[in-house]
């Protein structure tokens, strides 16, 4: 293990490390902590230029209830869920399939198809903006969650395929061969052998894609409009435009918008790290 485990250091070194950890963490998260504190300050603190002092009163409840009750934030949050969940499902499902095909089978164009996904994934997505918007318009899906979901699934498939394929590559190929000798149809091999083994990768990918999609702003702006279909990132900007300079409300809104991916990450972190180790850093 590198660096040398701290248990092997002197007790003083150990204590110093233990003390340094929280300090470093607070410094690292300072901007976030600031926002969190902002979000429970009363309006008056900002007029009185009491930005960094002790909050003159704790208005967390009223600030957050304002966000939830007097704005469209709940609606936006719901939209985000309705956009993110199908996308995660779709992208993970599609890429499990492509990853399986590319990771297990040898055929001539294998590497080229794989490279197509990889290259497509790294494309600056702005280049897709104009045509994708037109495509969505033509399909009659402009300003629908479906339109956004379909695009996200397609675009994420590139990254997910890279991830899945590498993961599947690392599985022992004998498992597939053993199954073939046993006379198991290919799709059953996928379903009963490969898929269960990919659980950590699926979890890691689900978290990553969830994060990417939840936080997407660009495509939300390009493909949707209005509260009926826009996700929370777009919602937070319009919320902020509405309450510009009302820092306490903006902060509360931002925290609300940021919370779901954080929760998701926490729930899945064990799988996330395991999957990442196997899939990405190989």
């Amino acid at each position, binding site marked *: 293990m590198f660096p040398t485990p701290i248990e092997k250091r002197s007790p003083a070194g150990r204590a110093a490390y233990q003390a340094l950890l929280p300090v470093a963490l607070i410094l690292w998260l300072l901007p976030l902590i600031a926002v969190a504190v902002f979000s429970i300050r009363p309006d008056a603190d900002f007029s009185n230029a009491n930005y960094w002092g002790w909050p003159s009163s704790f208005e967390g409840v009223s600030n957050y209830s304002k966000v939830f009750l007097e704005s469209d934030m709940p609606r936006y949050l719901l939209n985000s869920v309705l956009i993110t969940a199908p996308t995660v499902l779709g992208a993970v499902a599609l890429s499990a399939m492509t990853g399986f095909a590319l990771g297990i089978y040898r055929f001539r164009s294998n590497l080229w198809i794989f490279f197509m996904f990889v290259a497509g994934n790294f494309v600056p997505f702005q280049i897709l903006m104009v045509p994708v918007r037109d495509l969505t318009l033509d399909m009659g899906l402009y300003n629908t969650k479906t339109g956004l979901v379909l695009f996200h699934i397609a675009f994420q498939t590139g990254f997910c395929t890279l991830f899945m394929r590498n993961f599947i590559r690392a599985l022992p190929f004998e498992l597939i061969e053993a199954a073939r000798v046993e*006379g198991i149809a290919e799709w059953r091999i996928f379903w*009963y052998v490969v898929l269960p083994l990919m659980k950590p990768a699926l979890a890691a990918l689900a978290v990553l894609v969830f994060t990417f999609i939840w936080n997407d702003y660009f495509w939300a702006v390009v493909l949707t409009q209005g509260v009926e279909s826009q996700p929370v990132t777009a919602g937070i900007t319009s919320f902020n435009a509405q309450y510009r300079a009302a820092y306490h409300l903006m902060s509360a809104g931002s925290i609300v918008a940021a919370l779901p991916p954080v929760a998701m990450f926490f729930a899945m972190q064990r799988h996330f790290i395991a999957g990442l180790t196997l899939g990405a850093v190989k």
Partner: protein
Amino acid sequence: MSGVTLSNVIKRYGQVQVIHGIDLEIADGEFCVFVGPSGCGKSTLLRMVAGLEETTAGRMSIGARDVTHEDPAERGVAMVFQTYALYPHMTVAENMGFGLRMNGHPKAEIREKVAEASRILKLDDYLKRKPAALSGGQRQRVAIGRAIVRGPEVFLFDEPLSNLDAELRVEMRVEIARLHKEIGATMIYVTHDQVEAMTLADKIVVLRAGRIEQVGAPLDLYRDPDNRFVAGFIGSPAMNFLEGTVRNGAVEVPALGRAVPVPVRLPPEGTTVILGLRPEHLGLVEGDESFTVELTEALGGVSYAYLVAGNGERIIVEERGDQRSRPGRRVGITFEPERAMLFDAQTELRLR
């Protein structure tokens, strides 16, 4: 009837040919072991029998069926892999029953067959465990159980024991021998290990560079190898080889400083030949000073003396009992000439 017949079987990877026309007949119920140096094509040949590698040319049949182009699943073979290849997410019972389940056999039948196999392999207590919770030997047993359950005509093993430690290896080896006796199916077994080959096989196939060097029963190969390669490959420690020349109806061996009257039909006068002597057929004698003891290794019951001749040739002599020659001593060797073998130096073929 489920013997395996290979006729002029060839395998090419792109331009590289790795199996050069193999003809082989394995009888129904026979235990056939493939041995040979690393990279000689043992695994490839086995995988071709399994259908995991396509056969480039030639014919392959199992029983009366031509299976050359059949799917692995349809050949009626089962394979045990070196790394076990157990499905880590399934319990032992599920691992064993998986193939049947996927092929739509009724649950009761599966349960019964799994129970039967686990009885044979003494796995009853572990049926609910996942492979990760098993020791190496147990995993290997599950892998074998998975093969048994499907009741195949032919079992294929690719170095099934090489991931186990020495002790377990012995144990599992005996187990496999017992299994073969019990179910009597045709088995093809790939190994690196001398001892496994000698003890398990009804028939050993010695491969070199994609070609068969010799096929035969273990002791036949030991006693009557066709060529120098097989002679050197079978037996441990390996056979000693000394250069010699045919002179006056005997073989003059410089290292020994004398002529040896090998009782075989000798080639013409003056031909260079190679004299093969197994370490276990040699004895040390005092008085003769042809060799110097370089090193001795005592293993308890036996010890090996590494000797070097005046002309630099080296041989190994097995000594029984606890005696152990001191390094540096000068010794001679004795042997019964009828136990010596003679090989043509050019073709390396056995002269008999």
